[in-house]
């Protein structure tokens, strides 16, 4: 069981570029989440999904898109990257009331 895996671990983007952050879980969890963590702050929810084909916005969805075509994968898409999107991004999946997190992707937008 690998749990929740995320790729890449680190990426530098130029302003206006786009990229996809990958997230995969092998625990057959229906619920999955994307968070961002800025320095000195807690995690803020970007998007979440309650199952394949179903996604919904979280607290800070602007500038991001998601899709959920399978139970295992929940990619996060950044279109037109901006410096404000410099952050660490965490993906999580949920079993009962507890969320389990991946190792994170550190993104720097210059």
């Amino acid at each position, binding site marked *: 069981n690998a749990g*929740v895996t*995320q790729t890449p671990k680190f990426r530098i983007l130029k302003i206006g570029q786009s990229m996809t952050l990958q997230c995969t879980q092998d625990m057959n969890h229906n*619920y999955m*989440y994307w968070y961002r963590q800025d320095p*000195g*702050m*807690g*995690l*803020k*929810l970007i998007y*979440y999904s*309650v199952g394949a084909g179903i996604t919904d916005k*979280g607290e800070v969805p602007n500038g991001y898109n998601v899709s959920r075509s399978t139970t295992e994968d929940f990619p996060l898409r950044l279109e037109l990257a901006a410096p404000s999107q410099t952050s660490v991004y*965490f993906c*999580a999946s*949920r079993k009962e*009331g*507890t*969320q*389990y*997190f*991946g*190792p*994170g992707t550190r993104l720097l937008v210059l």
Partner: protein
Amino acid sequence: DQQVKQNSPSLSVQEGRISILNCDYTNSMFDYFLWYKKYPAEGPTFLISISSIKDKNEDGRFTVFLNKSAKHLSLHIVPSQPGDSAVYFCAASARVNSGGSNYKLTFGKGTLLTVNP
């Protein structure tokens, strides 16, 4: 509008002593509370949780206490060990939609615990 507050950005304790991390919340709809531990360059790791129907939950060296009337919870680590040095996040969730739940978590900003040998 911070619904989950961890008012101490940092805490330093001696090895072997008790560490007490505090968390306050404002949303009375929260019914499930969790503590996560985070090392640098890693994702948060689930530590312990408590449901609002309980006032205490214990797991080895870790105990979480919930005071619903004060909207306050705390994490006790006894005895503290140097390997416990990390950022600790308090998180809370509430049933969002009637007839269903998706357990969105609201996080505090975290407390950096340093356990000195």
